[in-house]
């Protein structure tokens, strides 16, 4: 390939040089773009679709603002309460019933029951089943994005683990700080419960990506495809769900750290692949 000049006057020469190299050859999409887009087209006219899209966007914005306000206002009040030394709802409960009494109550209602082996077996089976269901659901909803993240995990396992470790550390620290502030007000208590549950969504996504990567490994794919082999995915999910389920036989709370550890590489791969949108190859 020869390029004669970078001068503006040699526009055609540059184009010809590119053409000679074959770089200007059009690239063909691997899927039928028209059929794919037609399936996703709104069933209404563009005018109605535009109006609906505008309404959806306004609703999205309003929801975001409401969610941020729901999080920020109670957290700010909680921070103020803590700074002023106002008694928090949990503190008030502890002082009325006494810390030792509260602990005893909790142990009596939850802890002691969890010590029974049939309960542990049941919890273990539940942890196993819920994990498999969550993984299969996530992979079913996002087959392409999970595949891209899974491929990224196979391409850079150590970097993914490092990034995932850092991310989960930051997540735990920020959620812990947020929960401290939210539980300092009465109104923040239900929000704290929601935040605690939502904080586990990345963990579920991470486990799903780890399962996808394990599925590729089990299938011995040299070049993983986007097609979802459900049997293999269920097998991978079942295998990956085993450690946390088995740990519940020793200690039920210990299952949580196990789940976090399993999610770490997947979370890292998700970050590196920008949520499964941007594949990262070994090359």
């Amino acid at each position: 390939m020869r390029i004669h000049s970078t001068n503006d006057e040699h526009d055609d020469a540059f184009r010809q040089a590119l053409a000679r190299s074959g770089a200007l050859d059009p690239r063909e999409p691997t899927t039928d773009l028209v059929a794919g887009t037609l399936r996703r087209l709104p069933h209404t006219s563009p005018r109605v679709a535009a109006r609906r899209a505008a309404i959806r966007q306004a609703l999205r914005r309003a929801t975001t603002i409401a969610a941020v306000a729901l999080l920020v206002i109670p957290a700010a009040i909680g921070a103020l309460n803590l700074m002023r030394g106002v008694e928090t709802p949990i503190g008030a409960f502890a002082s009325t019933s006494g810390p030792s009494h509260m602990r005893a109550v909790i142990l009596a209602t939850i802890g002691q029951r969890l010590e029974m082996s049939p309960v542990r077996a049941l919890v273990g089976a539940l942890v196993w089943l819920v994990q498999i269901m969550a993984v299969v659901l996530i992979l079913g909803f996002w087959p392409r994005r999970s595949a891209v993240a899974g491929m990224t995990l196979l391409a850079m396992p150590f970097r993914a683990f490092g990034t995932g470790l850092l991310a989960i550390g930051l997540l735990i620290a920020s959620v812990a700080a947020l929960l401290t502030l939210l539980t300092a007000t009465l109104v923040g208590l239900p929000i704290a419960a929601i935040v605690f549950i939502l904080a586990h969504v990345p963990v579920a996504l991470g486990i799903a990506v780890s399962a996808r990567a394990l599925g590729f490994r089990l299938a011995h794919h040299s070049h993983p495809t986007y097609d979802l082999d459900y049997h293999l995915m269920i097998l991978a999910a079942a295998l990956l769900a085993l450690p946390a389920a088995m740990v519940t036989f020793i200690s039920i709370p210990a299952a949580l750290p196990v789940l976090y550890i399993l999610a770490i590489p997947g979370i890292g791969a998700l970050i590196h692949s920008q949520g499964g949108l941007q594949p990262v190859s070994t090359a």
Partner: protein
Amino acid sequence: MVEQSDEHALIKRSINGDHDAFAQLMERYAGSVFNLAYRMLGNAQEAEDASQEIFLRAYTNLARFDQARRFSTWLLSIGLNYCIDRLRRRRFAWLTLDDVVLSVPTLAKGPERSAIEQEERDAVQRALLRLPPTYREVAVLRYWNDLSYEEIMQVTGLPESTIKTRLHRARRMLAEALRAEGVVHEEIPS
């Protein structure tokens, strides 16, 4: 002229919600939209997703399309804005060259010649992806979508002088990158 009026008829039918008419419009421009997305984003998989999103955006905004404009430039401006948005959303500046790296050369021209040509094509794509998006967009529109300066002005909304300056710099950067890759075999005049 016939084609232009035919296109206007298809647009009118599409505005009334005729999916078949919009499918015909998509058939006409699927190639150029996909190639624009591919050259801007550098990844075929992402370009396919982006192309679908571009057509969906075009459909939603079709009622606002000014029929005095050319449909192709309007569609490409939607495509370009979408690609720029997508590039901005990328938090990390990783180059994704897996398409380039993993593609297998065809054997039609003999394996050696084909491999050399493939390497040259890959080198151009790599060099293109290293350009800043503002330079990449004018280069892609000029050389890959074969648009005139006036059409690039319509698509990007930039003045001609800016387009020429960016194109000049894009050419120089591309040429230097290709020289560094060993694809260009002669000195580039300054």
